[in-house]
């Protein structure tokens, strides 16, 4: 009988398989690094709206793009897999946490404004908002990390709130509190984006090396994906 440890290892490997090729990291990295670069070039508020839009639609946009990339690069080499869907309870739980964090963030902004007017709001923008936003964008990577047991996604989840908490203490000088907030978001986005690009590149190259394109088996008549 197969050793139970071997089976556990096999089960873990299968759970991680969908992300093993690095394509999800690459796409995430390109999008985040691109957004971070745009922050430095264009008006903060426009880019921030674009950032919110892209982050919110992330699963939809790059889910389809990744699937197409997998058709070309992954399925001919390692086969097709459809991972188990996220359980409804997990999705509802995540949305609930997101709503609670968002609510607390807004509440703290309102309280700051009530207590100290615009100066309170500006302090909120510099000291609280970046870490709060970091917590909100941590939810997506955290769900992936827990479902697929991926250590690097725990890192992607932890870094935004940590960066959001640390940057204000570095006392960079910003022309306005809004600039402080947007710059911190840009730094969060840039760091996660660059890390994801590095991990994605490494994983993708390793994947290509490990899994050559499977030749067509005449008996089976399969692998019509062998496009490359």
């Amino acid at each position, binding site marked *: 009988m197969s050793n139970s440890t071997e*089976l556990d290892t096999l089960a873990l490997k299968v759970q991680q398989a969908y992300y093993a090729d690095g394509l999800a990291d690459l796409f995430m990295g390109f999008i985040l690094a691109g957004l971070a670069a745009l922050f430095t070039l264009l008006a903060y508020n426009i880019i921030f709206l674009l950032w919110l839009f892209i982050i919110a639609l992330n699963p939809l946009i790059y889910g389809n793009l990744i699937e197409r990339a997998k058709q070309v690069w992954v399925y001919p080499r390692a086969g097709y897999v459809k991972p188990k869907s996220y359980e409804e309870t997990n999705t509802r739980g995540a949305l609930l946490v997101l709503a609670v964090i968002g609510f607390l963030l807004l509440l703290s902004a309102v309280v700051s404004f009530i207590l100290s007017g615009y100066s309170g709001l500006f302090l909120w923008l510099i000291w609280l908002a970046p870490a709060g936003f970091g917590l909100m964008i941590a939810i997506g990577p955290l769900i992936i990390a827990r479902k697929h047991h991926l250590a690097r996604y725990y890192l992607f989840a932890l870094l935004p709130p940590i960066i959001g908490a640390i940057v204000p203490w570095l006392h960079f000088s910003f022309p306005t509190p809004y600039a402080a907030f947007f710059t911190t978001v840009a730094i969060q986005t840039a760091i996660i984006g660059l890390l994801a690009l590095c991990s994605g590149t490494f994983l993708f190259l390793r994947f290509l090396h490990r899994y050559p394109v499977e030749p067509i088996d005449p008996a089976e008549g399969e692998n019509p994906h062998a496009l490359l």
Partner: protein
Amino acid sequence: MPSSESPPTPSLSDDELDPLVHSPARLKILTVLKEVERADFLFILRHTDLTRGNLSSHLSKLESVGYVTITKEFVEKIPHTLIQLTEEGKTALERYRQQMLQKLERIK
């Protein structure tokens, strides 16, 4: 791989290990399928390190007792041989797991 009607799953006593599950190769196949919604032949091949012929044979056996379903489908216009664990397969695997845990407990 032949697709066939599923004959009834053999009835087993509580203590008797299911011979269809109690095989290193089929245990690996079922373990892989348990972790996904469905996968194609190549994916299972890559993760079980079996030969094509071996895998094909084991899948046929599992399909014949209704533990897996094998279908040919198009995914984005490309044909795949897709394998999915059935409810019977999940039950059989879980029953096997419980039996093995009980046996280990008795040894302790």
